[in-house]
């Protein structure tokens, strides 16, 4: 059978496929998880990901941009999968979840450091679950034999009940809302992306709150009395969804400075890192890790960029 490049677009997901007589590749974008931040598009080496701004309707909330993957251009390297902070992209080869760039250590994974000390948890607290803007946390109480206990009040010996906090880590962008909402200091989250963000309200157009409309993290941006959007940098994950919709060139500045990831030595990652942060940050990381030959190659390849 000749090569087929297919695409199916549905309400909740978009799937592209490369079907060979003897092998089948598929990439699925979960549209419900995607925030339109554009990180994947920035690092895609084939420029296969197109970001489409949603048209703005006066007086209505702005919708986040949508992304469209070009089945003719994608070559299933799979880098967009692990780089999506929200886990919205999945690549499969012959039905198996398999990302060869991860297998070969050509691309890293985020380090999501989320520690929960459930011994500190109150039996009836679900604050973190309620706090998570992406609904990734499920809190339950279990008996010694692992059964979920719903009616805690009428349970005889409360001391042998345990709190279990399930977090869907792969989809978590580490905004720390749960940590900060936790009354018992039981959760520790380290941000996986560091950076800075600044809004200069004077530059914002009248009545605009587009960035706030699209921000996936409740509270990272908020409207204050001056009717302008302000930042609470504590929660910001530096995904940049706000930047994608901001109508003013310099009202919103956002810069990523570092990304916590599994150790890696790879030119492909260096390039991605440079695109997501800056040449300076990338070289810093390069200096720290690379062996000589690879470093030389990378440096030579980047020389023309100054």
């Amino acid at each position: 059978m000749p090569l087929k490049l297919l695409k199916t677009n549905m309400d909740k997901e978009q799937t592209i496929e490369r079907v060979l007589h003897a092998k089948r590749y598929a990439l699925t974008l979960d549209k419900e998880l995607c925030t339109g931040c554009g990180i994947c598009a920035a690092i895609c080496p084939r420029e296969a990901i197109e970001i489409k701004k949603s048209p703005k309707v006066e007086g209505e909330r702005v919708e986040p941009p949508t992304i469209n993957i070009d089945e003719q251009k994608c070559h299933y390297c799979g880098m967009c999968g692990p780089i999506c902070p929200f886990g919205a992209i999945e690549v499969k080869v012959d039905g198996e979840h398999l990302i060869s760039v991860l297998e070969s250590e050509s691309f890293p994974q985020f380090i999501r450091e989320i520690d929960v000390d459930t011994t500190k948890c109150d039996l009836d607290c679900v604050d973190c679950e309620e706090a998570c803007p992406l609904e990734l946390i499920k809190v339950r109480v279990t008996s010694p034999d692992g059964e979920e206990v719903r009616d805690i009040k009428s349970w005889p010996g409360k001391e042998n009940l345990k709190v279990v906090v399930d977090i869907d880590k792969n989809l978590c962008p580490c905004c720390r809302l749960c940590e900060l909402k936790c009354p018992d200091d039981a959760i520790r989250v380290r941000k996986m992306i560091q950076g800075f963000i600044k809004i200069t309200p004077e530059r914002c157009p009248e009545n605009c709150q587009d960035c706030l409309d699209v921000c996936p993290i409740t509270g990272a941006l908020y409207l204050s009395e001056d009717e302008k959007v302000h930042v609470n940098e504590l929660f910001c994950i530096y995904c940049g969804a706000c930047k994608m919709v901001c109508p003013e060139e310099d009202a919103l500045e956002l810069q990523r400075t570092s990304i916590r990831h599994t150790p890696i030595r790879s030119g492909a990652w260096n390039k991605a890192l440079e695109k997501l942060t800056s040449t300076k940050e990338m070289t810093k990381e390069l200096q720290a890790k690379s062996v000589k030959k690879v470093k030389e190659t990378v440096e030579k390849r980047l020389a023309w960029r100054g």
Partner: protein
Amino acid sequence: MSEEPRIGVFVCHCGLNIAGVIDVEELTEYARTLPNVVFAKRNRYTCADPGQDEIRKAIKEHNLNRVVVAACSPRMHEPTFRRCVAEAGLNPYLFEMANIREFSSWCHPNTPKEATEKAKEIVKMAVAKARLLRELKTMEVPVTNRALIVGGGIAGISAALDLADMGFKVYLLERGESIGGHMAQLDKTFPTLDCSICIEGPKMVDVSRHPNIEIISFADLLSVEGFVGNFKVRIRKNPRYIIADDCTGCGECRDVCPIEIPNEWDMNMGVRKAISVPFDQAVPLVYTILKDYCIECYKCVDACGARQAINFEQEAEEIELEVGAIIVSTGYNIYEPYDDSLYGYGKYDNVITALELERLILAAGPTGGKVVRASDGKKPHRVAIIQCVGSRDVNKYEYCSGYCCMYSVKHAVQLKEKYGDDVEIYLLYMDMRTNFKGYEEFYQRARKAGVTFIRGRVSKIIEDPETKNLIIRAEDMTLGEPIELEADMVVLSTASIPNEGTDEMSRVLNVSRGADGFFMESHPKLKPLDTPTDGIFLAGACQGPKDIPYSVSQGSGAASRAATILSKKTWEIEPIIAVVDPDACRNTRVKCGICARGCPYGAISAPEGEPAVVTAAMCHGCGTCVAECPADAIAQMHFTDAQIIAQIRAALAENPQSKILAFLCNWCSYAGADLAGTSRFEYPPTIRAIRVMCSGRVDRDFVLEAFRLGAGMVLVGACHLPYDCHYISGNVKMKARMEALAKIFEKLGLSPERFRVEYVSAAEGVKFAEVIKEMTEHMETLGEKRIKAENEKLQPTLERMLSRKKK
């Protein structure tokens, strides 16, 4: 050569062939009366030794400096007599022939009086031209004894090995990463079923080890300049991002590379890595990074380690080579019938092409030699093989692709031998073509193996959406009724088509293509390996579909054709070329270059502000540029304006209004007229013909001059459009020129039938005779009075238009 011409005329009896019709005595007498004729004689057979002796003797005794032989066609004996006069110390170009046999005695046997009169005028025309003949020197160019072979399939490989074994240096240019061509993609070969790569692989290795062969792979041919013996070739070597000399072919980089891409070598059915070779036996065994897909992770750089063979900085490199001969062996491609909904190719998972089957059945292929369906990975139990997909189809490719019958029989036998009774094979064919040695026997083997042969053409294939099986509807020609078959897999034997880039190649090499798009040979029977461009030869499937034995033979044949040049120190070129008069060329004053654009061989360059120059060795002597030049600044040696006008004037000196003046091209229409003579087709003796090498030489002024002199009719004879022209496209230029002229004549009130362009092939003697009969009838219907009246009306305009010719 300003000495007074002293012409000797020799009239041949040709036994009774001429003398039986024409009064040769009277003709000889007449010849003596012609200007500058100082000697005339009759011979029984001028071409025989005694006849030739007489010529040589007369040259000496009568101090002749021009010779005219009135005998048969110059296409027959011109070379003989040129040699003869040269032996007597005369320049061979001071010889002219008057064709009174094919053009008179043979076609007018029943009107001897008219035939004699016509013969007189033919001799008169020859003498008129002879008076103006000039000495010409055959040119010699040095020969570079190296060869370039373009395309490293089995045809190119065979040619390369043969030439290299003869001791010539060979550059083998291959645009792919490896040599081998399609043969390296095949599993087994008919009719012996030996493993294809096992027999080709050693040859590929021989090529890479041969001290006289240099493989230039992953490279493109950019341009070819120069001419036979002296070609300058520019080639771009594309970057592999691997230093060829340092790559050991270990494949460690491939193992670590994360990127998989469809492998075109596997017909995109399997994958290869971004750093890889297309197949394991590749020659040269040098890896390539497919940069479009590489993510630059540099895992390969690590793996390559101390060998340091990877270089991401590599850039394309242009090289220039000098070679004496070029062999084109760029092969073919297969038709992928996406555009024909009949077969469902590209739509139904289990419909594949024959070349895809080759990759499936091959042990080293993407499925490890398992023939499985794409839809479910299961082995098919019923396979239908369908012949002539795209071939022998007036709506697609009219020709027969030749070897599909044989490879389909091969596939049937292979599947039977592999899976035995577990698989049923239906082979649907139109005609089974199994010529050549061992082929019919192989077909019988398939019959014995239990393959079901069905003679019929498929009308529709549909897919069962559940099972993904295919329902084939066809017309069984033996039963004469429609049939329906269900199969698990359908294999399409698709047409062999010109390779990608053939048009570009044809432009770069100046080699024309046939109506089917394949490269065209110089002569289908006698020069099957030559192209019209001297020094460039064809081998293998680039000239038309061919199987392996045929391609190999052609490779060897082309090698020996090339060796006829490479083995010489110098090469001779016929001096009937075009020469520019730099003072008359207007390109120095205005941007002209019409000649350069008109030359079918790119032999003329006209740099801005400078007079045009003809590269003598590239000029084939068609004379198209001469006729195209608006300033009359180009002359064709041996066919000058003055010589041709002298012929026109001689032909029309008497009773012009009752004559057809014809310009006939040497290769088709003149040959067609010869054939009319040899076939003894009779036609009225009204025509006076002037031979030119190509119809492209026929200047507008010649036609104007003929009518100015009062010609009854004018005919321009040419090779058939679009591909028959011996000089690629001289006839095309002539057509445009004459169409424009016809418009002018129409405005001037010339009856349209008086000026005619006819395409007559060398085989169309009948047509030629018919055309002359028809034109004569038209001429008679119009009548002398009308013709004269028209001419009179035309006269002043023609005088004006020709004023600059009146020198």
